[in-house]
C-alpha cells in the first residue's frame, strides 16, 4: 500500500484541519478461496482454531480494496480519506466481498 494518502476512521484528522470535502470514495474486492485452501481448511476443521490461510487471503483482499479506494481518491485530487469503514459480506459459497469506503478530503497543516 502506498502511504501518500492519509487514512483515518474518525471524522477529523487529529492535529490537522480539513480544507475541503470531496465526497465518497470506495473500493471493493471479491475473493474466492481455491480448492487447495479449502481442503486444508477442511482438515483444520478437525482441530478448529485459527485458519491462517484465510486470514491471509482476506487481509490481502482488504489491502487491495483499500488500494482501489486510494486510487479513487487520488483521481479526485485528495490527499486524505476520513471516516473509513470496512465491511465484509459473503456473496456465494466460498467467496467473500471486502468493501472499504470513506470520504475523500484535502487537508492542510494547522496554524
Amino acid at each position, binding site marked *: 500500500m502506498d502511504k501518500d494518502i*492519509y*487514512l*483515518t*476512521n*474518525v*471524522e477529523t*484528522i*487529529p*492535529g490537522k484541519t480539513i480544507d475541503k470535502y470531496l465526497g465518497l470514495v470506495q473500493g471493493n474486492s471479491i475473493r474466492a478461496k481455491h480448492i487447495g485452501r479449502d481442503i486444508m*481448511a477442511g482438515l*483444520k*476443521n*478437525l*482441530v*478448529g*482454531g*485459527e*485458519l491462517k490461510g*484465510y*486470514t491471509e487471503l*482476506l*487481509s490481502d483482499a*482488504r489491502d487491495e480494496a483499500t488500494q482501489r479506494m486510494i486510487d479513487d481518491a487520488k483521481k479526485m485530487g485528495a490527499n486524505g480519506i476520513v471516516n*473509513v*469503514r*470496512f*465491511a*465484509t*459480506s*459473503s456473496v456465494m*459459497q*466460498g467467496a*467473500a466481498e471486502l468493501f472499504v469506503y470513506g470520504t475523500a478530503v484535502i487537508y492542510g497543516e494547522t496554524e
Partner: protein
Amino acid sequence: MIGLYLLIFLSPFILVLFCGLIGIFLEYLHKKSILKREKLLETIKTTNLKRDHSNLEIEDSCLCRGSTTVASDYLKLFFASLRTIFGGQVRSYEILLERARREAILRMKAEAAAKKADMIINVRIQTSTIGNASSNKNANPMVEVIAYGTALISSK
C-alpha cells in the same frame, strides 16, 4: 473380527474426538499466549470514542487494523447442535469468538506498536460469517473478526 469391524465403524468418531481434544489443548496454549501479549501491549490504550480525552500532543496518526479467521471443530459443532435442542448458552462457541476477537485486537495493537503509537481511538470491531455457514446453518461455522482504529502518535 467383530472388534475390527467395530473399530472401522467407530474410527471417524474416534478421529473427531481425538482432534477435538487436541483443539482444546491448542485453545489453552493460545489463551496463554494472548494473556502474555496483552500484558506486553498494555501501554497502548484503546477506546471507541472519537476523540482522545487525555490531551495528548498529537504529532501523527494512522489507520491500523487486525483481523483473524476462526473455525470451530466438529466436536464443538456436535456440542453446539446438542445445545440447539435444549437451548441455553453455547459456551464452546463463546470461547472461540472471544479468542478471535482478542486476537484481532492484539494484531491491531501490534501494528500500532510498530508505529510507536500511544493510543488507538475510534476502535471498531466487526464480526462476519464467511464460508458455508452463511447459507447452510448446519455447516461448520467460519467467522472473521476485524478490528480497526486510528492510532495516535504523540510528539514527546
